[in-house]
């Protein structure tokens, strides 16, 4: 029994939003609903890092815990899914989710929430695998076809990893070991030197300052 997980490697994520559009492409998610998003921290300054986030398919999923109609379930693959036929659109999962994964279609300026929508790990929903009904409600079911979520499969720099927790942690572990060596050699010194660098060398500022 696999335990499916996402992991986004911040050292590699370049905020290209490929995962976001791949998700839109695969699941035909409408404008305004973003099952996945890329968040950039320290935007525009040294230390800038980006992370792609979506539903993380938690083992102890807060959304499932707080759902008043108990519409969530975890598949044998460890994917947290929900049943839109049961969902009432209350929004509690949105309050509880640490990652902001649940999305709600809204109507105009006076909106009530519709049924919740979120990343399914490209695993569809409770309907029969690959059925039209499933696609309509939840989007693609790639897992049933033996494929992984398209966002991760299409990640430009292979920053976003998806798959069995054991496998992706292995991949990431290898990267970290490589990087540790790189950091020892260059990172510590170069990056720190880099980070102390003043925002210099430009435009009017320099003009005023030069000899």
């Amino acid at each position, binding site marked *: 029994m696999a335990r499916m997980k996402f992991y986004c490697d911040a050292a590699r994520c370049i905020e290209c939003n490929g995962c976001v559009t791949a998700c839109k492409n695969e699941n035909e998610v409408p404008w305004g609903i973003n099952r996945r998003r890329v*968040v950039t*921290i320290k935007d525009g300054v040294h*230390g800038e890092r980006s*992370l792609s986030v979506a539903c993380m398919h938690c083992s102890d999923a807060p959304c499932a815990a707080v759902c008043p*109609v108990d519409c969530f379930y975890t598949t044998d693959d460890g994917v947290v899914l929900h049943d839109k*036929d049961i969902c009432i659109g209350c929004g509690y999962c949105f*309050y509880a989710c640490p990652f902001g994964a649940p999305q709600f279609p*809204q109507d105009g300026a006076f909106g009530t929430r519709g049924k919740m929508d979120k990343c399914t790990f490209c695993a569809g929903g409770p309907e029969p695998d690959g059925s039209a009904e499933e696609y309509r409600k939840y989007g693609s079911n790639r897992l049933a076809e033996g494929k992984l979520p398209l966002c991760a499969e299409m990640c430009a720099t292979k920053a976003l990893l998806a798959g069995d927790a054991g496998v992706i942690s292995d991949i990431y572990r290898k990267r970290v*070991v490589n990087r540790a060596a790189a950091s020892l050699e260059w990172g*510590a010194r170069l990056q720190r030197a880099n980070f102390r660098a003043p925002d210099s060398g430009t435009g009017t500022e320099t003009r005023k300052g030069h000899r």
Partner: protein
Amino acid sequence: MSFRPPPCRRVTRSGWICWVLLAGLALLVADLPAAAPSHDKPSAKVDDPGTDLWRFVRRRAPELRSLAEKGAIGPVTTQVKGVDTSVLINDKGQEWRLYRHRMLIPISAIVLGTVAVLLLLLYLAVGRRVPDPRETGKRLLRFVAYERTLHWFMAAIFLFLGVTGLTILYGRPLLIPLVGKESFSAMASASKEGHNLFGPLFLVSLLLFLQRFWRRNLYSRGDLRWLIRLGGLLGGDSPPAGFFNMGEKMLFWLLIAVGLLICASGLVLLFPNFGQGRLLMEGAHLIHTLGAVLLLATIMAHIYMGIATKGAMDGMKGGYVEYSWARHHHREWADEEEKKGRVLSEEEVRRRFGEARKIGVPEREAGT
């Protein structure tokens, strides 16, 4: 400016720990005569600029924004437009979850259950309280039709909201085992939509209530005494009171205050698309539920009073109350009405109704 020669170029994976120690030592030695500026001090410690990233990750956007404005860090951004999309991890969600599950559901169940059981027991033990055995046969007009309508209007909405709200709150543990997920989902969906639609009406009724009754619920002299004697629970006889006694006034203001709070927080939850973040909504939900539990318990007591006190419901049913009841509970008001000559005989009341029945002349009531 001095530059140290770079250390050896390759690190074998197996030996890198030894390398750390050796290189650190070598660099330290190499660095001593160079006397480089302190910030250039080499370090064997891996200092990835990504590390302090994770300290920010758990913080919320507003904090980050203020830090960003101070120039301490760059802003947190995302190309995905929406509420809170730039919040990477919302750890308040967990607190909200704990509140709902560890506090709200068990504690409110205990509170509401206890109150209900106590009142029931009280009713069974004491029965209907009869304030004054003497029936005077005289009547006083207490509430006009509009006021009675308003009361029942609000009561109906309140009860509806209470039932639907509790359905959503307790449905999962209580109802799903009984009716199954699908049926309960229909119930909950209906409850949610009904709750959403009636919520604003409750606010309307609340405002109409306030407009109609606020003056009669202002504090007046003697109310404190009434309160100290707990409306006659202590000292036998009921203390004198005006149109409303202190208990009713307190209920009124509690209803208005908590009601408005519930409405306000409810509106925050009802329209999720005015840019309010999750934090605000979680807070609103907290206020909403606490207020609702408080009001529910209070209203239970209110209903108990209405049922258990003989004659109390009359004013809200037909508008007229028994004079002795009025004397007993609202002595000052009854005396005043008497002075104004507004005490009617039962015949008179019946005649008014009867005339109305016979010839269809509208009942004249002040300020309908």
